[in-house]
Protein backbone atom coordinates (compact mmCIF):
# COMPACT_ATOMS: atom_id res chain seq x y z
CA UNK A 1 0.00 0.00 0.00
CA UNK A 2 1.05 3.52 -0.69
CA UNK A 3 1.54 5.84 2.24
CA UNK A 4 2.26 9.42 1.24
CA UNK A 5 4.94 11.43 3.01
CA UNK A 6 2.28 13.76 4.26
CA UNK A 7 -1.45 14.14 3.96
CA UNK A 8 -4.33 15.69 5.78
CA UNK A 9 -7.85 14.44 5.91
CA UNK A 10 -10.94 15.93 7.50
CA UNK A 11 -14.57 14.98 7.20
CA UNK A 12 -16.85 16.38 9.81
CA UNK A 13 -20.23 16.34 8.12
CA UNK A 14 -22.92 14.25 9.74
CA UNK A 15 -24.66 12.10 7.16
CA UNK A 16 -28.09 10.51 7.38
CA UNK A 17 -29.08 8.18 4.59
CA UNK A 18 -32.19 6.13 3.98
CA UNK A 19 -35.57 5.86 2.32
CA UNK A 20 -36.97 8.01 5.14
CA UNK A 21 -33.99 10.15 5.92
CA UNK A 22 -35.85 13.43 5.40
CA UNK A 23 -38.05 12.68 8.38
CA UNK A 24 -35.01 12.95 10.66
CA UNK A 25 -34.35 16.61 9.87
CA UNK A 26 -36.51 18.26 12.57
CA UNK A 27 -34.94 16.29 15.41
CA UNK A 28 -31.44 16.92 14.12
CA UNK A 29 -32.06 20.63 13.68
CA UNK A 30 -33.39 20.78 17.21
CA UNK A 31 -30.17 19.22 18.47
CA UNK A 32 -28.29 22.02 16.76
CA UNK A 33 -30.58 24.47 18.54
CA UNK A 34 -32.11 25.67 15.31
CA UNK A 35 -35.85 26.21 14.86
CA UNK A 36 -36.39 28.61 12.00
CA UNK A 37 -34.62 27.41 8.86
CA UNK A 38 -34.44 29.29 5.59
CA UNK A 39 -34.83 26.95 2.63
CA UNK A 40 -32.50 27.85 -0.25
CA UNK A 41 -33.33 26.26 -3.57
CA UNK A 42 -34.00 26.93 -7.25
CA UNK A 43 -37.06 27.08 -9.49
CA UNK A 44 -36.40 23.67 -10.99
CA UNK A 45 -36.42 21.96 -7.62
CA UNK A 46 -39.63 23.72 -6.62
CA UNK A 47 -41.17 22.85 -10.00
CA UNK A 48 -40.34 19.20 -9.52
CA UNK A 49 -42.25 19.32 -6.24
CA UNK A 50 -39.21 18.47 -4.16
CA UNK A 51 -39.69 21.25 -1.60
CA UNK A 52 -43.16 19.86 -0.99
CA UNK A 53 -41.68 16.40 -0.49
CA UNK A 54 -39.43 17.83 2.20
CA UNK A 55 -42.28 19.81 3.70
CA UNK A 56 -44.46 16.70 3.94
CA UNK A 57 -41.64 14.66 5.37
CA UNK A 58 -40.78 17.03 8.19
CA UNK A 59 -44.50 17.32 8.97
CA UNK A 60 -45.70 19.43 11.81
CA UNK A 61 -42.50 19.19 13.80
CA UNK A 62 -40.82 21.82 11.68
CA UNK A 63 -42.71 24.42 9.76
CA UNK A 64 -41.07 25.51 6.54
CA UNK A 65 -42.28 29.00 5.78
CA UNK A 66 -39.20 30.83 4.55
CA UNK A 67 -38.23 29.69 1.08
CA UNK A 68 -35.79 31.40 -1.28
CA UNK A 69 -36.13 29.77 -4.68
CA UNK A 70 -34.31 32.25 -6.91
CA UNK A 71 -30.90 30.64 -7.20
CA UNK A 72 -29.81 30.71 -10.87
CA UNK A 73 -27.66 28.08 -12.58
CA UNK A 74 -24.52 30.22 -12.24
CA UNK A 75 -24.95 31.83 -8.87
CA UNK A 76 -23.11 35.01 -7.95
CA UNK A 77 -22.37 36.97 -4.81
CA UNK A 78 -25.36 39.28 -5.26
CA UNK A 79 -27.72 36.32 -4.86
CA UNK A 80 -25.72 35.25 -1.82
CA UNK A 81 -26.10 38.70 -0.26
CA UNK A 82 -29.81 38.66 -1.01
CA UNK A 83 -30.23 35.30 0.71
CA UNK A 84 -28.32 36.57 3.75
CA UNK A 85 -30.55 39.64 3.89
CA UNK A 86 -33.73 37.56 3.87
CA UNK A 87 -32.18 35.27 6.48
CA UNK A 88 -31.85 38.23 8.82
CA UNK A 89 -35.20 39.84 7.96
CA UNK A 90 -37.03 36.61 8.75
CA UNK A 91 -34.96 35.95 11.87
CA UNK A 92 -33.80 32.58 10.64
CA UNK A 93 -31.22 30.58 12.53
CA UNK A 94 -30.22 27.93 10.00
CA UNK A 95 -30.24 27.10 6.28
CA UNK A 96 -31.60 24.06 4.50
CA UNK A 97 -30.19 23.86 0.97
CA UNK A 98 -32.19 21.72 -1.45
CA UNK A 99 -30.60 21.37 -4.86
CA UNK A 100 -27.46 20.72 -6.86
CA UNK A 101 -24.02 22.31 -6.88
CA UNK A 102 -25.07 25.91 -7.49
CA UNK A 103 -27.71 25.92 -4.75
CA UNK A 104 -25.34 24.31 -2.25
CA UNK A 105 -22.56 26.80 -3.01
CA UNK A 106 -24.98 29.71 -2.69
CA UNK A 107 -26.16 28.37 0.66
CA UNK A 108 -22.57 27.98 1.87
CA UNK A 109 -21.82 31.57 0.87
CA UNK A 110 -25.01 32.91 2.42
CA UNK A 111 -24.21 31.06 5.63
CA UNK A 112 -20.89 32.92 5.86
CA UNK A 113 -22.52 36.35 5.59
CA UNK A 114 -25.52 35.44 7.73
CA UNK A 115 -23.39 33.96 10.52
CA UNK A 116 -20.47 36.35 10.59
CA UNK A 117 -22.37 39.56 9.92
CA UNK A 118 -21.70 42.25 7.39
CA UNK A 119 -23.50 43.18 4.22
CA UNK A 120 -21.68 41.30 1.52
CA UNK A 121 -19.75 38.16 0.81
CA UNK A 122 -16.96 40.23 -0.74
CA UNK A 123 -15.78 41.04 2.80
CA UNK A 124 -14.86 37.41 3.27
CA UNK A 125 -12.84 36.87 0.13
CA UNK A 126 -9.48 35.19 0.49
CA UNK A 127 -8.13 32.11 2.05
CA UNK A 128 -8.50 32.48 5.76
CA UNK A 129 -11.31 34.98 6.16
CA UNK A 130 -13.76 32.49 7.69
CA UNK A 131 -12.36 31.77 11.10
CA UNK A 132 -15.15 30.56 13.32
CA UNK A 133 -18.06 28.17 13.45
CA UNK A 134 -21.01 29.19 11.29
CA UNK A 135 -24.71 28.65 11.89
CA UNK A 136 -26.26 25.24 11.15
CA UNK A 137 -26.37 24.30 7.48
CA UNK A 138 -28.31 21.28 6.25
CA UNK A 139 -27.80 20.07 2.70
CA UNK A 140 -30.24 17.89 0.79
CA UNK A 141 -28.67 17.08 -2.60
CA UNK A 142 -31.09 16.60 -5.50
CA UNK A 143 -28.47 15.20 -7.86
CA UNK A 144 -26.20 12.29 -7.12
CA UNK A 145 -22.93 13.63 -8.39
CA UNK A 146 -21.39 16.92 -7.34
CA UNK A 147 -20.49 15.83 -3.83
CA UNK A 148 -20.61 19.52 -2.76
CA UNK A 149 -22.27 18.48 0.47
CA UNK A 150 -18.88 17.15 1.56
CA UNK A 151 -16.51 19.85 0.33
CA UNK A 152 -15.01 22.78 2.17
CA UNK A 153 -15.08 24.96 -0.92
CA UNK A 154 -17.69 27.36 -2.21
CA UNK A 155 -17.25 28.74 -5.71
CA UNK A 156 -19.17 31.95 -6.26
CA UNK A 157 -18.94 34.23 -9.25
CA UNK A 158 -18.37 37.95 -9.29
CA UNK A 159 -20.00 39.07 -12.55
CA UNK A 160 -18.56 42.59 -12.31
CA UNK A 161 -14.97 41.45 -12.22
CA UNK A 162 -15.77 38.37 -14.33
CA UNK A 163 -14.03 36.03 -11.90
CA UNK A 164 -14.94 33.04 -9.79
CA UNK A 165 -14.21 33.59 -6.13
CA UNK A 166 -13.02 30.63 -4.13
CA UNK A 167 -13.96 30.35 -0.47
CA UNK A 168 -12.06 27.65 1.35
CA UNK A 169 -12.50 26.84 5.03
CA UNK A 170 -13.38 23.85 7.16
CA UNK A 171 -16.13 25.98 8.66
CA UNK A 172 -17.91 26.12 5.32
CA UNK A 173 -18.59 22.38 5.49
CA UNK A 174 -22.30 21.70 6.10
CA UNK A 175 -23.33 20.26 9.45
CA UNK A 176 -25.68 17.69 8.05
CA UNK A 177 -26.16 16.00 4.69
CA UNK A 178 -29.43 14.17 4.07
CA UNK A 179 -29.45 11.45 1.42
CA UNK A 180 -32.95 10.40 0.49
CA UNK A 181 -33.78 8.73 -2.84
CA UNK A 182 -37.04 10.67 -3.10
CA UNK A 183 -34.94 13.71 -3.91
CA UNK A 184 -33.36 12.23 -7.06
CA UNK A 185 -36.41 10.30 -8.25
CA UNK A 186 -37.55 12.91 -10.75
CA UNK A 187 -34.10 13.46 -12.27
CA UNK A 188 -34.19 12.70 -16.04
CA UNK A 189 -32.21 9.62 -17.05
CA UNK A 190 -29.46 11.46 -18.92
CA UNK A 191 -28.82 13.73 -15.91
CA UNK A 192 -28.73 10.73 -13.58
CA UNK A 193 -26.14 9.28 -15.93
CA UNK A 194 -23.90 12.34 -16.28
CA UNK A 195 -24.02 13.38 -12.63
CA UNK A 196 -23.13 9.87 -11.53
CA UNK A 197 -20.22 9.89 -13.97
CA UNK A 198 -19.09 13.12 -12.32
CA UNK A 199 -19.01 11.25 -9.02
CA UNK A 200 -17.17 8.42 -10.75
CA UNK A 201 -14.60 10.94 -11.96
CA UNK A 202 -14.19 12.37 -8.46
CA UNK A 203 -13.49 8.90 -7.12
CA UNK A 204 -11.11 7.88 -9.91
CA UNK A 205 -9.14 11.13 -9.93
CA UNK A 206 -8.93 11.14 -6.15
CA UNK A 207 -7.51 7.64 -6.44
CA UNK A 208 -4.73 8.29 -8.94
CA UNK A 209 -3.89 11.98 -8.61
CA UNK A 210 -1.05 13.36 -6.54
CA UNK A 211 -2.79 13.98 -3.26
CA UNK A 212 -4.07 10.45 -2.86
CA UNK A 213 -4.01 9.05 0.66
CA UNK A 214 -5.21 5.83 2.30
CA UNK A 215 -8.33 7.39 3.81
CA UNK A 216 -9.62 9.04 0.66
CA UNK A 217 -8.62 5.87 -1.24
CA UNK A 218 -11.09 3.78 0.72
CA UNK A 219 -13.92 6.21 0.09
CA UNK A 220 -13.02 6.33 -3.60
CA UNK A 221 -12.85 2.57 -4.06
CA UNK A 222 -16.24 1.93 -2.53
CA UNK A 223 -17.82 4.78 -4.46
CA UNK A 224 -16.54 3.31 -7.74
CA UNK A 225 -17.96 -0.09 -6.84
CA UNK A 226 -21.39 1.29 -5.99
CA UNK A 227 -21.62 3.40 -9.14
CA UNK A 228 -20.53 0.62 -11.47
CA UNK A 229 -23.03 -1.77 -9.90
CA UNK A 230 -25.99 0.60 -9.86
CA UNK A 231 -25.79 3.30 -12.48
CA UNK A 232 -27.01 1.44 -15.54
CA UNK A 233 -29.70 -0.30 -13.48
CA UNK A 234 -31.10 3.02 -12.25
CA UNK A 235 -30.96 4.66 -15.68
CA UNK A 236 -32.92 1.75 -17.13
CA UNK A 237 -35.35 1.66 -14.23
CA UNK A 238 -35.85 5.15 -12.74
CA UNK A 239 -38.14 3.82 -10.00
CA UNK A 240 -35.32 1.76 -8.47
CA UNK A 241 -35.23 3.57 -5.13
CA UNK A 242 -32.59 1.36 -3.61
CA UNK A 243 -30.31 1.96 -6.57
CA UNK A 244 -30.92 5.70 -6.29
CA UNK A 245 -30.02 5.69 -2.62
CA UNK A 246 -26.89 3.74 -3.48
CA UNK A 247 -25.89 6.35 -6.08
CA UNK A 248 -26.52 9.18 -3.62
CA UNK A 249 -24.23 7.41 -1.15
CA UNK A 250 -21.57 6.87 -3.78
CA UNK A 251 -21.67 10.52 -4.76
CA UNK A 252 -21.21 11.60 -1.15
CA UNK A 253 -18.35 9.17 -0.66
CA UNK A 254 -16.67 10.34 -3.84
CA UNK A 255 -17.15 13.87 -2.48
CA UNK A 256 -15.26 12.97 0.69
CA UNK A 257 -12.53 11.37 -1.40
CA UNK A 258 -11.87 14.29 -3.73
CA UNK A 259 -12.36 16.91 -1.07
CA UNK A 260 -9.46 15.35 0.83
CA UNK A 261 -7.28 14.54 -2.10
CA UNK A 262 -7.53 16.42 -5.36
CA UNK A 263 -8.79 16.12 -8.88
CA UNK A 264 -6.61 16.40 -11.98
CA UNK A 265 -6.62 16.65 -15.74
CA UNK A 266 -10.24 15.58 -16.29
CA UNK A 267 -11.51 18.37 -14.08
CA UNK A 268 -8.90 20.77 -15.40
CA UNK A 269 -10.19 20.32 -18.95
CA UNK A 270 -13.80 19.97 -17.82
CA UNK A 271 -13.83 23.23 -15.85
CA UNK A 272 -12.34 25.04 -18.83
CA UNK A 273 -14.75 23.58 -21.38
CA UNK A 274 -17.56 24.43 -18.99
CA UNK A 275 -16.42 28.03 -18.66
CA UNK A 276 -15.86 28.61 -22.38
CA UNK A 277 -18.58 26.49 -24.05
CA UNK A 278 -21.07 26.05 -21.18
CA UNK A 279 -20.91 22.28 -21.35
CA UNK A 280 -22.62 20.78 -18.29
CA UNK A 281 -20.00 19.57 -15.82
CA UNK A 282 -21.19 15.96 -15.69
CA UNK A 283 -21.20 15.65 -19.48
CA UNK A 284 -17.63 16.90 -19.75
CA UNK A 285 -16.60 14.47 -17.01
CA UNK A 286 -18.13 11.40 -18.65
CA UNK A 287 -16.44 12.19 -21.93
CA UNK A 288 -13.02 13.05 -20.56
CA UNK A 289 -12.54 10.47 -17.80
CA UNK A 290 -11.15 7.72 -20.06
CA UNK A 291 -8.79 10.23 -21.67
CA UNK A 292 -7.53 11.49 -18.32
CA UNK A 293 -6.65 7.91 -17.40
CA UNK A 294 -4.95 7.23 -20.72
CA UNK A 295 -2.96 10.44 -20.50
CA UNK A 296 -1.59 9.56 -17.06
CA UNK A 297 -1.15 5.85 -17.65
CA UNK A 298 2.61 5.93 -18.19
CA UNK A 299 3.01 7.73 -14.86
CA UNK A 300 0.70 5.74 -12.61
CA UNK A 301 -0.68 2.84 -14.64
CA UNK A 302 -0.39 0.42 -11.77
CA UNK A 303 -2.60 2.59 -9.57
CA UNK A 304 -5.15 3.09 -12.33
CA UNK A 305 -5.13 -0.69 -12.76
CA UNK A 306 -6.21 -1.12 -9.15
CA UNK A 307 -9.48 0.60 -10.05
CA UNK A 308 -10.40 -2.54 -11.98
CA UNK A 309 -11.23 -4.36 -8.75
CA UNK A 310 -14.16 -2.15 -7.70
CA UNK A 311 -15.11 -1.43 -11.29
CA UNK A 312 -15.42 -4.99 -12.57
CA UNK A 313 -15.31 -7.21 -9.50
CA UNK A 314 -12.78 -9.75 -8.23
CA UNK A 315 -13.22 -12.32 -11.03
CA UNK A 316 -12.36 -9.99 -13.85
CA UNK A 317 -9.60 -8.42 -11.76
CA UNK A 318 -7.97 -11.77 -11.08
CA UNK A 319 -8.31 -12.91 -14.68
CA UNK A 320 -6.70 -9.79 -16.07
CA UNK A 321 -2.96 -9.64 -16.34
CA UNK A 322 -1.50 -6.88 -14.13
CA UNK A 323 -0.09 -5.06 -17.16
CA UNK A 324 -3.44 -5.03 -18.92
CA UNK A 325 -5.50 -3.79 -15.98
CA UNK A 326 -5.23 -0.04 -16.61
CA UNK A 327 -6.25 -0.50 -20.23
CA UNK A 328 -9.12 -2.69 -19.13
CA UNK A 329 -10.28 0.07 -16.76
CA UNK A 330 -10.35 2.58 -19.60
CA UNK A 331 -12.15 0.10 -21.82
CA UNK A 332 -14.83 -0.50 -19.18
CA UNK A 333 -15.39 3.22 -18.56
CA UNK A 334 -15.84 3.67 -22.33
CA UNK A 335 -18.25 0.75 -22.38
CA UNK A 336 -20.17 2.31 -19.51
CA UNK A 337 -20.51 5.56 -21.47
CA UNK A 338 -21.70 3.57 -24.49
CA UNK A 339 -24.27 1.65 -22.46
CA UNK A 340 -25.54 4.91 -20.99
CA UNK A 341 -25.67 6.42 -24.48
CA UNK A 342 -27.92 3.60 -25.60
CA UNK A 343 -30.03 3.52 -22.43
CA UNK A 344 -30.76 7.25 -22.65
CA UNK A 345 -31.59 7.19 -26.35
CA UNK A 346 -28.45 9.11 -27.27
CA UNK A 347 -28.80 11.90 -24.73
CA UNK A 348 -25.66 10.88 -22.84
CA UNK A 349 -22.79 12.21 -24.93
CA UNK A 350 -19.66 10.13 -25.49
CA UNK A 351 -17.51 12.60 -27.44
CA UNK A 352 -17.17 16.34 -27.44
CA UNK A 353 -18.53 16.67 -30.99
CA UNK A 354 -21.66 14.81 -29.93
CA UNK A 355 -22.77 17.44 -27.41
CA UNK A 356 -25.68 19.47 -28.72
CA UNK A 357 -27.87 22.10 -27.12
CA UNK A 358 -31.67 22.17 -27.03
CA UNK A 359 -31.86 23.26 -30.67
CA UNK A 360 -29.53 20.54 -31.84
CA UNK A 361 -26.63 22.93 -32.44
CA UNK A 362 -23.09 21.84 -31.68
CA UNK A 363 -21.86 23.12 -28.31
CA UNK A 364 -18.10 22.61 -28.69
CA UNK A 365 -16.91 23.76 -32.13
CA UNK A 366 -13.57 22.30 -33.16
CA UNK A 367 -12.22 25.79 -33.78
CA UNK A 368 -12.41 26.57 -30.05
CA UNK A 369 -10.18 23.69 -28.97
CA UNK A 370 -6.93 25.74 -29.07
CA UNK A 371 -8.57 28.44 -26.96
CA UNK A 372 -9.66 25.84 -24.42
CA UNK A 373 -6.19 24.26 -24.42
CA UNK A 374 -4.58 27.62 -23.58
CA UNK A 375 -7.08 28.37 -20.83
CA UNK A 376 -6.43 25.09 -19.02
CA UNK A 377 -3.27 26.70 -17.60
CA UNK A 378 -5.49 28.89 -15.43
CA UNK A 379 -7.23 26.12 -13.51
CA UNK A 380 -6.03 24.85 -10.15
CA UNK A 381 -6.77 21.21 -10.93
CA UNK A 382 -3.65 21.09 -13.11
CA UNK A 383 -1.45 21.00 -10.03
CA UNK A 384 -2.51 17.57 -8.78
CA UNK A 385 -2.41 15.77 -12.11
CA UNK A 386 0.42 13.21 -12.15
CA UNK A 387 1.71 14.22 -15.60
CA UNK A 388 2.44 17.80 -16.57
CA UNK A 389 -0.19 19.18 -18.93
CA UNK A 390 0.81 22.17 -21.05
CA UNK A 391 -1.42 23.67 -23.76
CA UNK A 392 0.06 21.39 -26.45
CA UNK A 393 -0.72 18.36 -24.28
CA UNK A 394 -4.24 19.57 -23.55
CA UNK A 395 -4.72 20.05 -27.29
CA UNK A 396 -3.71 16.45 -27.95
CA UNK A 397 -6.27 15.15 -25.45
CA UNK A 398 -9.00 17.52 -26.64
CA UNK A 399 -8.58 16.57 -30.29
CA UNK A 400 -8.95 12.90 -29.48
CA UNK A 401 -11.90 13.49 -27.15
CA UNK A 402 -13.55 15.65 -29.78
CA UNK A 403 -13.34 12.99 -32.47
CA UNK A 404 -14.05 10.20 -30.04
CA UNK A 405 -11.05 8.03 -30.72
CA UNK A 406 -8.89 6.54 -27.99
CA UNK A 407 -5.86 8.61 -27.06
CA UNK A 408 -2.76 7.78 -29.09
CA UNK A 409 -0.49 7.24 -26.09
CA UNK A 410 2.67 7.21 -28.18
CA UNK A 411 2.10 10.93 -28.80
CA UNK A 412 1.96 11.82 -25.10
CA UNK A 413 5.03 13.77 -23.96
CA UNK A 414 7.00 11.75 -21.43
CA UNK A 415 10.13 12.44 -19.44
CA UNK A 416 9.26 12.66 -15.77
CA UNK A 417 10.64 10.68 -12.89
CA UNK A 418 8.53 8.29 -10.83
CA UNK A 419 5.48 10.01 -9.31
CA UNK A 420 5.99 10.84 -5.65
CA UNK A 421 2.80 10.85 -3.64
Amino acid at each position, binding site marked *: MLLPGFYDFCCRVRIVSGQNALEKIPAMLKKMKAHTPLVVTDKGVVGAGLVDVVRDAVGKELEIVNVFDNVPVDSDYKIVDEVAKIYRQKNCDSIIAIGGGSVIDTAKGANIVASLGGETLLDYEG*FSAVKRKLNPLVVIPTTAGTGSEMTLVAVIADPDRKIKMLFVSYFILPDLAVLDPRMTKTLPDFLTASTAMDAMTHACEAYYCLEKNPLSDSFAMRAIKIISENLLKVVKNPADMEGRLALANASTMAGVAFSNSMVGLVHNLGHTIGAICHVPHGTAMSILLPYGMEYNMHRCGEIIGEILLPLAGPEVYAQTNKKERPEKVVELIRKMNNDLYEATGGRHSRYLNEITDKNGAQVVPESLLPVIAQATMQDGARMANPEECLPADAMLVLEHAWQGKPLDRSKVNK*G*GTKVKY
Partner: protein
Amino acid sequence: MNINKYPEIHPGKKLFKRVYVAIMLWTVGKAIQVAAKVDKEVKEELAKLPDNFTLRMMVAPEKAFPLFFYAKTLPAFVVDKGLLFYGIQMILHKDKEGKIKYLGADPKGKKIDLNIVFKNIEAAWMVLSFQESTATAYMHDRFVVEGDLVHSLTFVRVLDIVEIFLLPKIIAKLAVKRYPKWAEMSPLRKFVKRVVIYIRAYTF
Protein backbone atom coordinates in the same frame (compact mmCIF):
# COMPACT_ATOMS: atom_id res chain seq x y z
CA MET B 1 14.42 12.52 33.27
CA ASN B 2 17.83 14.05 33.15
CA ILE B 3 17.58 17.21 31.15
CA ASN B 4 21.35 17.37 30.72
CA LYS B 5 21.21 14.33 28.50
CA TYR B 6 19.36 16.25 25.87
CA PRO B 7 21.49 18.15 23.43
CA GLU B 8 21.29 21.88 23.44
CA ILE B 9 19.79 23.28 20.29
CA HIS B 10 21.79 26.05 18.76
CA PRO B 11 19.97 28.67 16.75
CA GLY B 12 22.84 28.75 14.32
CA LYS B 13 22.40 25.14 13.36
CA LYS B 14 20.23 25.92 10.40
CA LEU B 15 22.44 28.71 9.22
CA PHE B 16 23.71 26.76 6.26
CA LYS B 17 20.16 26.05 5.12
CA ARG B 18 19.16 29.66 5.60
CA VAL B 19 22.06 31.00 3.62
CA TYR B 20 21.47 28.43 0.91
CA VAL B 21 17.77 29.24 0.67
CA ALA B 22 18.49 32.97 0.64
CA ILE B 23 20.98 32.56 -2.21
CA MET B 24 18.57 30.34 -4.12
CA LEU B 25 15.72 32.81 -3.77
CA TRP B 26 17.99 35.61 -4.88
CA THR B 27 19.10 33.57 -7.89
CA VAL B 28 15.55 32.61 -8.79
CA GLY B 29 14.37 36.21 -8.50
CA LYS B 30 17.18 37.51 -10.70
CA ALA B 31 16.77 34.63 -13.14
CA ILE B 32 13.08 35.30 -13.59
CA GLN B 33 13.82 38.97 -14.23
CA VAL B 34 16.29 38.01 -16.95
CA ALA B 35 14.22 35.16 -18.37
CA ALA B 36 11.25 37.49 -18.72
CA LYS B 37 13.40 39.53 -21.11
CA VAL B 38 15.07 36.80 -23.10
CA ASP B 39 12.63 33.90 -23.28
CA LYS B 40 9.40 34.03 -25.21
CA GLU B 41 7.59 31.37 -23.20
CA VAL B 42 8.40 32.99 -19.85
CA LYS B 43 7.37 36.35 -21.25
CA GLU B 44 4.03 35.01 -22.45
CA GLU B 45 3.40 33.25 -19.18
CA LEU B 46 4.15 36.38 -17.12
CA ALA B 47 1.92 38.42 -19.41
CA LYS B 48 -1.01 36.65 -17.74
CA LEU B 49 -0.31 38.49 -14.50
CA PRO B 50 -2.03 41.86 -14.11
CA ASP B 51 0.13 44.97 -14.47
CA ASN B 52 1.37 46.70 -11.35
CA PHE B 53 1.58 43.39 -9.60
CA THR B 54 3.85 42.48 -6.72
CA LEU B 55 4.69 38.92 -5.90
CA ARG B 56 6.60 37.69 -2.91
CA MET B 57 8.09 34.33 -2.07
CA MET B 58 9.22 34.03 1.51
CA VAL B 59 10.03 31.76 4.38
CA ALA B 60 7.89 32.06 7.51
CA PRO B 61 8.18 33.54 10.04
CA GLU B 62 8.85 37.01 8.77
CA LYS B 63 11.61 38.03 11.13
CA ALA B 64 15.29 38.76 11.16
CA PHE B 65 17.65 36.07 12.28
CA PRO B 66 21.10 36.61 13.68
CA LEU B 67 22.68 36.89 10.30
CA PHE B 68 24.18 40.19 11.40
CA PHE B 69 27.08 38.36 12.97
CA TYR B 70 27.96 36.65 9.75
CA ALA B 71 27.33 39.64 7.56
CA LYS B 72 31.00 40.33 6.94
CA THR B 73 31.78 36.84 5.78
CA LEU B 74 28.89 36.63 3.37
CA PRO B 75 28.95 37.79 -0.23
CA ALA B 76 27.63 41.29 -0.64
CA PHE B 77 24.43 40.40 -2.44
CA VAL B 78 23.12 38.20 0.36
CA VAL B 79 23.31 40.97 2.88
CA ASP B 80 20.24 42.75 1.69
CA LYS B 81 18.79 45.11 4.26
CA GLY B 82 15.43 43.42 3.88
CA LEU B 83 17.03 40.06 4.49
CA LEU B 84 18.45 41.21 7.80
CA PHE B 85 15.30 42.88 8.99
CA TYR B 86 12.53 40.75 7.52
CA GLY B 87 14.12 37.38 6.92
CA ILE B 88 14.30 35.42 3.70
CA GLN B 89 12.16 36.97 1.00
CA MET B 90 12.14 37.44 -2.73
CA ILE B 91 10.00 40.18 -4.20
CA LEU B 92 9.18 40.49 -7.88
CA HIS B 93 7.27 43.35 -9.42
CA LYS B 94 5.52 43.68 -12.73
CA ASP B 95 5.15 47.34 -13.62
CA LYS B 96 2.69 49.25 -15.79
CA GLU B 97 4.59 48.41 -18.96
CA GLY B 98 4.65 44.74 -18.06
CA LYS B 99 8.36 44.74 -17.18
CA ILE B 100 9.46 42.30 -14.49
CA LYS B 101 11.91 43.48 -11.88
CA TYR B 102 13.50 41.77 -8.92
CA LEU B 103 13.13 44.04 -5.90
CA GLY B 104 15.23 42.31 -3.28
CA ALA B 105 14.03 41.22 0.12
CA ASP B 106 12.61 44.40 1.59
CA PRO B 107 8.78 44.36 1.67
CA LYS B 108 8.54 47.76 3.36
CA GLY B 109 6.05 50.06 1.66
CA LYS B 110 5.07 47.50 -0.95
CA LYS B 111 1.59 46.16 -1.48
CA ILE B 112 1.95 42.40 -1.91
CA ASP B 113 -0.64 40.95 -4.32
CA LEU B 114 0.49 37.36 -4.26
CA ASN B 115 2.29 35.92 -1.27
CA ILE B 116 3.84 32.47 -1.43
CA VAL B 117 4.97 31.45 2.01
CA PHE B 118 7.07 28.41 2.86
CA LYS B 119 5.84 27.25 6.23
CA ASN B 120 9.35 27.02 7.65
CA ILE B 121 12.99 26.87 6.64
CA GLU B 122 12.90 23.08 6.36
CA ALA B 123 10.06 23.29 3.85
CA ALA B 124 11.95 25.84 1.77
CA TRP B 125 15.10 23.73 2.00
CA MET B 126 13.28 20.61 0.76
CA VAL B 127 11.97 22.45 -2.29
CA LEU B 128 14.95 24.63 -3.15
CA SER B 129 17.45 21.82 -2.73
CA PHE B 130 15.24 19.84 -5.13
CA GLN B 131 14.49 16.99 -2.77
CA GLU B 132 10.87 17.67 -3.49
CA SER B 133 9.33 18.85 -6.74
CA THR B 134 7.18 21.97 -6.75
CA ALA B 135 4.09 19.84 -7.32
CA THR B 136 4.88 17.43 -4.49
CA ALA B 137 5.63 20.34 -2.18
CA TYR B 138 2.24 21.79 -3.03
CA MET B 139 0.60 18.44 -2.24
CA HIS B 140 2.50 18.17 1.02
CA ASP B 141 1.41 21.64 2.13
CA ARG B 142 4.98 22.97 2.27
CA PHE B 143 3.80 26.43 1.35
CA VAL B 144 0.63 28.46 1.50
CA VAL B 145 -0.58 30.85 -1.12
CA GLU B 146 -2.18 34.12 -0.10
CA GLY B 147 -3.88 35.83 -2.99
CA ASP B 148 -5.38 34.66 -6.24
CA LEU B 149 -4.66 30.98 -6.80
CA VAL B 150 -4.67 31.46 -10.57
CA HIS B 151 -1.65 33.77 -10.36
CA SER B 152 0.21 31.21 -8.30
CA LEU B 153 -0.28 28.71 -11.13
CA THR B 154 1.41 31.16 -13.48
CA PHE B 155 4.27 31.62 -11.05
CA VAL B 156 4.77 27.87 -10.59
CA ARG B 157 4.94 27.42 -14.35
CA VAL B 158 7.53 30.20 -14.67
CA LEU B 159 9.51 28.65 -11.84
CA ASP B 160 9.50 25.31 -13.67
CA ILE B 161 10.79 26.83 -16.91
CA VAL B 162 13.51 28.81 -15.15
CA GLU B 163 14.61 25.72 -13.24
CA ILE B 164 14.89 23.82 -16.50
CA PHE B 165 17.09 26.60 -17.87
CA LEU B 166 19.32 26.92 -14.84
CA LEU B 167 19.79 23.38 -13.62
CA PRO B 168 21.51 20.41 -15.17
CA LYS B 169 19.05 17.79 -16.36
CA ILE B 170 19.81 15.34 -13.57
CA ILE B 171 18.72 17.88 -10.94
CA ALA B 172 15.99 19.66 -12.89
CA LYS B 173 14.29 16.30 -13.38
CA LEU B 174 13.69 16.19 -9.63
CA ALA B 175 12.24 19.67 -9.56
CA VAL B 176 9.66 19.55 -12.33
CA LYS B 177 6.91 17.11 -13.17
CA ARG B 178 8.23 16.44 -16.64
CA TYR B 179 11.61 17.28 -18.10
CA PRO B 180 11.07 18.42 -21.69
CA LYS B 181 12.45 16.26 -24.49
CA TRP B 182 13.96 17.45 -27.75
CA ALA B 183 10.66 18.09 -29.42
CA GLU B 184 9.34 20.19 -26.55
CA MET B 185 12.40 22.31 -25.92
CA SER B 186 15.57 22.13 -27.99
CA PRO B 187 18.88 21.67 -26.13
CA LEU B 188 20.19 24.69 -27.97
CA ARG B 189 17.52 26.93 -26.47
CA LYS B 190 18.16 25.42 -23.05
CA PHE B 191 21.91 25.94 -23.31
CA VAL B 192 21.83 29.47 -24.70
CA LYS B 193 19.26 30.59 -22.14
CA ARG B 194 21.24 28.98 -19.35
CA VAL B 195 24.37 30.91 -20.24
CA VAL B 196 22.55 34.19 -20.85
CA ILE B 197 20.54 34.00 -17.65
CA TYR B 198 23.52 33.09 -15.49
CA ILE B 199 25.67 35.83 -16.90
CA ARG B 200 23.05 38.54 -16.72
CA ALA B 201 21.68 37.48 -13.35
CA TYR B 202 25.07 37.66 -11.71
CA THR B 203 26.33 40.78 -13.44
CA PHE B 204 23.48 43.28 -13.41
